[in-house]
């Protein structure tokens, strides 16, 4: 394992120290591993809380700031944070209008956020709502399973709901909006290589030089199937086709297309990939009106990418375009 690292046990703690030093616009509770907008709670605004395991940087701390999240909880690498963290953060970001939990759909995250909501309800009078985000079409959507993973669409949900929260909208309206954006989003990912969890010290799975994994998540888990190494053109098809098969993305104002790097894939390749994705969308009559290309939801040092598509109506487009000032997404301010 070759990484910029000291003791793997200290990785998350030390990285959070770096985030704190680099971003004076954040407040970091190292004890509890919570990162806040420095000015939280914002009076009268619904507080937005997300978070999850570490190893997905810039998710989640890169999305804290005006126009997006108020706080995130950081877990160990690929391990959901614990209810105490979430309950504490919920308390701290309640500006009097309640707190919305934006939960990435993983068994651990959902259960820990559930317990946090129970704790918060027992200990404070903060009103909490939770929305679970589950956009990954690699996984069958079924009531009898853990359901679909939450992946890239969370960026659209958090950005759009963040903008609406700045406008002063109420908790249940924001929860509805979050569900609407989630429903309007689908994602699919692939890996060229496994990642290496530092505590384990070796790759999570072995992948020969001439094979790739299709339908991966963001925790280094193997995908739905292993196929021979293919061209970017063919890979784009393997990602875009199942997305378009799952939902109609024509109409509306068009779509937001997000080509996400898994951590070790550089921008040169991601833009090449976007070219292929956009060509397929063209052919399908789907119109990209906004684009995001880069490593936003990573899986440690995995090489690969995922594609997320969100259908935008006029309102969602305006909220996406609204000012945002986080370390990973910033415009208009």
């Amino acid at each position: 394992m070759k990484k910029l690292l000291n003791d793997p046990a200290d990785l998350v703690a030390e990285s959070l120290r770096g985030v704190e030093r680099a971003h004076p616009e954040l407040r970091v509770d190292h004890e509890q591993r919570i990162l806040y907008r420095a000015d939280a709670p914002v009076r009268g605004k619904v507080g937005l809380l997300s978070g999850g395991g570490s190893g997905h940087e810039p998710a989640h701390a890169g999305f804290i700031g005006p126009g997006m999240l108020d706080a995130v909880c950081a877990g160990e690498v690929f391990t959901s944070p614990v209810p105490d963290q979430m309950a504490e953060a919920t308390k701290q970001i309640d500006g009097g209008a309640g707190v919305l939990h934006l939960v990435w759909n993983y068994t651990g995250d959902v259960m820990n956020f559930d317990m946090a909501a129970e704790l918060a309800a027992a200990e404070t009078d903060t009103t909490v709502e939770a929305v679970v985000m589950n956009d990954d079409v690699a996984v069958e959507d079924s009531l009898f399973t853990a359901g679909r993973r939450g992946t890239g669409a969370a960026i659209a949900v958090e950005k759009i709901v963040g903008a609406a929260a700045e406008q002063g909208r109420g908790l249940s309206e924001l929860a509805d909006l979050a569900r609407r954006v989630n429903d309007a989003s689908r994602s699919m990912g692939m890996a060229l290589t496994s990642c290496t969890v530092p505590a384990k010290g070796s790759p999570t799975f072995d992948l020969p030089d001439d094979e790739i994994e299709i339908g991966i998540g963001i925790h280094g888990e193997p995908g739905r199937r292993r196929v021979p190494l293919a061209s970017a053109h063919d890979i784009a098809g393997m990602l875009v086709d199942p997305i378009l098969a799952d939902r109609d993305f024509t109409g509306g104002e068009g779509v937001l297309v997000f080509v996400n790097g898994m951590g070790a894939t550089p921008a040169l390749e991601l833009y090449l990939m976007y070219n292929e994705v956009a060509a397929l969308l063209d052919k399908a009559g789907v119109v990209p009106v906004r684009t995001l290309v880069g490593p936003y939801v990573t899986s440690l040092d995995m090489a690969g990418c995922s594609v997320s598509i969100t259908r935008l109506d006029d309102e969602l487009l305006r909220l996406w375009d609204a000012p945002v000032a986080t370390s990973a997404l910033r415009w208009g301010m």
Partner: protein
Amino acid sequence: MADVDVLDLTVLDRWLRLFAASVAEQKDTLTALDAAIGDADHGANMHRGMTAVVEALDATPPADPAALFKQTGMVLVRSVGGASGPLYGTFFLRMAPATGGAGALEPETFAKALRAGVEGVVARGKAEPGDKTMLDALAPALDALDAALAAGESLAAALRQASTAADEGRDATTPLVARKGRASYLGERSADHQDPGATSAALLVGAAAAAVAGP
């Protein structure tokens, strides 16, 4: 030392420490199992949790079994995260009230508490036996324990049989296609792999058997 036939604080404390020790020993195995069908952290998660549980036992020795279970559950919920944290945490938290405040647990009370714990896992995780989760080790273990106790077997013998049932349940997860937890994302590819949570759960039952067994 002969087999014990009630579970007092000493025995329960030994149970948790034995479980912590076998988790520490099997950490890499648990993580390797999780790497195959999950995210390669189950060993680290359980080890972090059980280390904290033992530290808590040292720092604030509980006054009775209910306090011991509650403390253990709270520590697990607070320190583990992921899926296993809330699940194992809930397991112990639900055991506490089922002790009825006793200072030492009769075998039947212990079995009842374990069943309350497992019901907590089901309530929290919504899994059923056969979903390829820790339940696949826990549920058969409970059934075996109840059956053995009903048949008049000693606590030690009953927990030995429970442990065997847990091991069998763990092994039986191998061919299953996961329907809950992270392994479910793999669909058919989750078959032919032993479930990490069932593996740690079998260690938990095995530790109980060891804790009551004579030397």
